[in-house]
């Protein structure tokens, strides 16, 4: 039932404005695939093209090997969950869930069995005879999910389904969605602008910007080995430094703006001596040491597990900028005070090095499309 989705050189235009210039991706059968990006990056546009609500101006979208460009939405056998849920207000919960099955002319007994099952899976059996008005946001969300899944669609499409829920419910529902998806084993395309949600829920993530895919990969790879500076700063926080590469006898070093050197052993082969680079260090990739980047603590935020510090570089380096550093409370020897002067040593195994324009990673074996 479930299919793979192949997006091949797809173009989207509204009149003269090009939203998606040329996009290709392969979404595997049964996979939980997330489109992630800032608003206006074209992620919802692409989802609605797969659904059939937006026209396709170029290229092809295939379900397995079948081109679906000209199949109208109601014949694509998709399940879609909308941002505002789009529960039919004049039908009860049960009638909402039955709606798609009735269109498929399923016999009564089988329909009842299927609806009972799915109501149970998403845990709304108790509310089945209520009108949607009397449901909370989380319950409406479950109805929407049940209604989309019960028809056994070829793909499940979800357009920011959690953005109208409060923070706690969001976490609860994303776990529920993930569980239901794995249980049913259905290819799912999920749109969100919330990077934490994307990391938590996905098998793979496509990070998009301005209608172009920046990187596709598993959550951990996207986070630890971003393909470019956009990805490294959009997902999580990265402190960026200008630097140069310097070859010495024992290997290739990155030299930070203020002269601090760090030996790297995982740079790719195209790296040259004297090449200008961009260095990205995440707040947790620093440790306090006897050598490193000189900085002074300005403020600190205690978060329980971590302490986050805002620091400013001291000394006469070319960079007078603010950086962020996270200290693991479980490991920390002491918690520092504003005004303390420290030396921060980046972890050479963890940090990322990009070309000077930030467009490409210079770390060995980092792939754009995984």
């Amino acid at each position, binding site marked *: 039932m479930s299919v793979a989705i192949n997006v091949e050189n797809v173009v989207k235009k509204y009149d003269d404005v090009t939203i998606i210039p040329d996009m290709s991706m392969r979404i595997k059968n049964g996979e939980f695939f997330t489109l992630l990006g800032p608003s206006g990056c074209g992620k919802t546009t692409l989802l609605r093209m797969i659904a059939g609500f937006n026209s396709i101006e170029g290229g092809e979208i295939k379900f397995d090997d079948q081109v679906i460009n000209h199949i109208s939405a109601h014949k694509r056998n998709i399940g879609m969950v909308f941002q505002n849920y789009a529960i*039919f207000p004049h039908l009860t919960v049960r009638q909402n869930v039955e709606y798609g099955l009735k269109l498929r002319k399923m016999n009564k007994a089988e329909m009842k069995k299927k609806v009972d099952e799915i109501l149970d899976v998403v845990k709304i059996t108790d509310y089945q005879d209520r009108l949607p008005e009397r449901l909370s946001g989380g319950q409406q969300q479950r109805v929407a999910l049940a209604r989309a899944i019960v*028809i056994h669609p070829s793909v499940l499409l979800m357009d920011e389904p959690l953005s109208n829920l409060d923070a706690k419910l969001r976490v609860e529902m994303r776990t529920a969605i993930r569980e239901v998806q794995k249980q049913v084993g259905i290819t799912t395309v999920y749109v969100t602008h919330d990077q934490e949600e994307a990391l938590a829920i996905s098998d793979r993530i496509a990070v998009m910007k301005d209608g172009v895919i920046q990187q596709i990969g598993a959550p951990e790879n996207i986070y630890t080995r971003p393909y470019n500076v956009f990805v490294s700063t959009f997902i999580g926080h990265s402190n960026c430094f200008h630097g140069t590469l310097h070859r010495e006898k024992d290997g290739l070093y990155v030299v930070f703006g203020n002269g601090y050197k760090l030996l790297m052993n995982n740079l790719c082969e195209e790296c040259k001596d004297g090449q200008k680079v961009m260095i990205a260090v995440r707040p947790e990739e620093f440790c306090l040491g006897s050598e490193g980047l000189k900085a002074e603590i300005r403020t600190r935020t205690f978060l329980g597990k971590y302490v986050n510090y805002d620091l400013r570089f001291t000394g006469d380096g070319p960079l007078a900028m603010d950086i962020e550093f996270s200290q693991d409370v479980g490991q920390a020897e002491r918690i520092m005070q504003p005004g303390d002067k420290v030396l921060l040593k980046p972890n050479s195994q963890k940090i990322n090095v990009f070309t000077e324009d930030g467009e490409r990673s210079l770390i060995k074996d980092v792939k754009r499309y995984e």
Partner: protein
Amino acid sequence: MSKRKGIKLDFWNVVTIVIVLVFAVFLVYPLFSLFLSGFRDAATGEYTLSNFAKFFSKKYYYRTLGHSFLVTTCTTILAVLIGAPLAYLTTAFKVKGKGLIDILVIISMLSPPFIGAYSWIVLGGRSGIITKFFANVFGIETPSIYGFGGILLVLTLKLYPYIYLYTCGALKKVDASLSEAAESLGCNAVRKVGTIVLPLIAPTILAGSLIVFMNALADFGTPMLIGEGYTVMPVLIYNEFISEMGGQANFAAALAVIMVVITAVMFLGQKYVVNKKSFTMSSLRPIQAKKIKGVPNVLMHIFIYLVVFLAIIPQITVIYTSFKATNGAIFVDGYSLDSYRSIFHSLGTAIRNTYLFGLIAIVIVIIVSMLIAYVTIRRKSWISNVIDSMTMFPYIIPGSVLGITLLLAFNKKPLLLSGTAFIIILAFVVRRLPYTLRSSAAILYQLSPSMEEAAISLGDSPLKTFFKVTAVMMMPGVMSGAILSWITIINELSASVILYTGSTRTMSVSIYTEVIRASYGTAAALSSILTLTTVVSLLIFFKVSGKKEVSL
């Protein structure tokens, strides 16, 4: 143990009591006396059912009830069949000239009710333009415009805009994602309309149908002019009342009672159904109009333009004929301003009366509406609930019934009002209060009481707060209803035609009497002035409010 709290005579309590008293004197008491008089024998004054027996035993009488029901039901069904698809098409698909269409629809709805009848007589009557054209050129006899068909044609074209505007309003609240959700579940376009769109807007269509039904049932001018032998209830009431004016109005009163009972049942029934089936909708992303191509697109445009054109024909006819040269009451070749000269010469009072009475009435309507809205929403008590129920009365009392009611109640001292301007203005206020009252209540629900509380906490008295804060913030909402009240006041016929005397006649009444006299030129000129006033009022309203629609 008596728990007597001293009733504080603050401003709002006084207002509440005054409103109750005014309603009691000018609405409840007249209706009450109407009911009583319907149950009285004309000769002896004893209580009896003979008036009702007379009605239900003679075919000449009871068939009017059948006529009324048949023509009203057919009108309602046709209005829905035209108005609802029109609204869906203009919402779901791109239609050229949508803005103009909307304005024309509103104008055709807000024109004087009998202009339609009279224009269609001018066009398709015995010596009408179209009739003559077909007879002279083709030698074909066109079907008669008089009777059932004529009433149906005129009322449908006059009333479908209610359904159109109501449905457009409801469709704006349907979120596009609902329609997409249906598609994603495998629903084709036709089934989507049937299983999702239609059920969602059904309560609104039902509410609109009731308005159409009530309007059609109560309409006096149209069946009077074009119905000829096909008598309906309001016409019968008028005829019986006018002919029995020697103090024998009891039979007419009994007829009025029958009408009021029918409309009350309809009104309450509709309220019950709508309340039971209602659900709230709000749309973040309204349905976008899609472009369609080819034959469907052409057919759609033909349908829309045809309906709107047919509905606006009366206005065009009226304005055109008002500039025709006349010889006495007969149109001759050529154009002139004779009709206008003639009305300013002989009917100047009617024009003056219309604006004067209308302005006084609308000012009263606005003040009373705001006060009632405030009392019933912010000062809830059993008394304000009584007021709330009394405001239902205007919905269920047809104009001609109201005319008789007021005349019967106020034709002797100490409240001898018949023949005065006061009674006409009273009829205007009672009949057209609901539009403004509803919009005032709607806006007040949206205003947070904390705004008033803030003003009071800063040291304003509650009275000052109402006029300086609440009333000012309510104004935009109030005005959107007041525009409808105003336009329907100046076009009011069915009550004023019973209440007028020579010195208190209005333009509507004059048009009616001129048409009866077959003086079509002067009638057309008067109608044109009314239509012009309506259009100008609408344009000013659109300009000031920045909207392109009226809220019903």
